């Protein structure tokens, strides 16, 4: 409910700033809502290809089984390093099956089962994006309708989804960079609408289950997270167009108390992590670049659409992670009081 109130305030503010914005197409909007909620009642199996663009583009392929409302299993076949690995999502928990280390890592997930929160998020999306119908296309042998999402602040297409004409399942999701290039594509190659047996969602026998650190926190409102942090949290004075605070969390990772604040515009999300003690960033597999943010040295790394910016300020350590570009993250970082 707090999430809803916060978003309502943000929407009221946004309504003032988006002068002359056109009303969303009600029909396309209703189709989009059907697509977003389809997996809660629809079971399916299929093969999915995920293309991630950027500096080091790669394609991942996995077999997916979904049993409505909330059991999902992905078994990876490509790239070769992931072959044999699987991710199982079950009622708010994620189990990552690591075949190489012969173990399962258990983590928290916040599935979209809270319909009130989903409605609020969808309202935020409608406020910030124009919903437009695109042409038909056949995907995995199924007829699909295309629905484009155009950001009202930048007037650029941010996302295109193609939904199954009958079931409304999203069979393709394309995300675009600010310059219009494709940065991320999820696409079904094969889809079959049938429920996999429940036994397919069991964990492999003999694999020990290890608790991941993200099980520690409980999501709450951003204000409550700031109040319960136990140290003086500094919040940004600037957020990119349409972004609003939607959720917060206080976690203890490797002994360090950390406040996690989440900002969203309905599609893109940005997280701010504020550590109460000095820490350094380990970036295995990614080489960070060094940048300056308002006179402070910072590290910046990008993996597909996700950008990470990290810096120190006295005893505190900050990290921004999200789908906004580096320019926006630098502006957010600069707006945090020193």
């Amino acid at each position, binding site marked *: 409910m707090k999430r809803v109130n916060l978003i309502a305030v943000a929407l009221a503010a946004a309504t003032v700033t988006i002068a002359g914005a056109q009303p969303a197409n009600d029909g*396309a909007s*209703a*189709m989009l809502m059907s697509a977003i909620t389809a997996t809660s009642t629809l079971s399916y199996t299929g093969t999915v290809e995920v293309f991630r663009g950027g500096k080091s583009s790669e394609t991942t392929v996995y077999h997916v089984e979904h049993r409505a409302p909330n059991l999902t299993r992905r078994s990876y076949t490509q790239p070769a390093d*992931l072959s044999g690995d699987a991710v199982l999502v079950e009622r708010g928990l994620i189990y990552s099956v690591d075949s190489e280390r012969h173990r399962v890592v258990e983590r928290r997930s*916040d599935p979209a089962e809270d319909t009130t929160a989903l409605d609020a998020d969808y309202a935020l999306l409608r406020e910030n994006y124009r919903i437009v119908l695109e042409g038909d296309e056949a995907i995995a042998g199924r007829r699909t309708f295309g629905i484009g999402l155009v950001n009202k602040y930048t007037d650029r297409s941010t996302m295109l989804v193609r939904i199954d004409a009958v079931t409304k399942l999203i069979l393709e999701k394309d995300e675009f960079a600010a310059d219009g290039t494709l940065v991320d594509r999820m696409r079904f190659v094969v889809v079959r609408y049938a429920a996999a047996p429940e036994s397919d969602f069991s964990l492999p026998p003999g694999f020990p289950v290890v608790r991941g650190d993200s099980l520690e926190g409980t999501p709450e409102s951003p204000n409550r997270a700031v109040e319960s942090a136990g140290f003086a949290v500094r919040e940004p004075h600037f957020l990119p167009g349409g972004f609003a605070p939607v959720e917060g969390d206080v976690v203890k990772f*490797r002994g360090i108390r950390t406040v996690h604040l989440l900002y969203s515009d309905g599609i893109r*999300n940005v997280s701010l992590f504020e550590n109460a*003690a000095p820490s350094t960033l380990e970036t295995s597999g990614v080489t960070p670049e060094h940048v300056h943010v308002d006179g402070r040295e910072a590290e910046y790394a990008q993996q597909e659409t996700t950008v990470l910016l990290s810096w120190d300020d006295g005893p505190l350590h900050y990290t921004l992670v999200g789908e906004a570009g580096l320019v926006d993250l630098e502006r957010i970082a600069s707006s945090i009081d020193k």
Partner: protein
Amino acid sequence: MNETHPNIDQIVDHLHGELPAADEAAMHAHLAGCPKCQERRNEEAAITQTLRAHALATQLELPPALVARIRMEIAEAVQPSWRQRLRLFFRPIVLLPVAAAAALVIYLRFSPGHSAVTPTPIDAAYYVNEHAALAAKAPFADNVPPATLTLDDEAR
């Protein structure tokens, strides 16, 4: 379509995904505000569902023993040999963090005048995973995180 109610043919076409995109959008908009048409749609959907369930029930399935054997053979096929395991260990994504951690330990152990208060190293994958977990409620968020990030040494 908003002023006049859709006829039964249009509702059937909608259920079978055969309406043009604009008519489909108009149908959704109409259904959202017309309980009577929603009811007609649900009745038609129930009939379609019953027919599909009947078709599925009469479909021949592979014997369970054969399915189990195929699964077992696939599982055995993906088990890496000791040589593959060794190669996996020496791949850069594993070896580099191990080497970096070893270098850090040596540095902390032997560096003269090193302060007692040292910054705690936190893996970038932790932040990305936490971000994905909290953002999973967003309408188009992927509620299953990328395997590459969850399989790093997150659990400590």
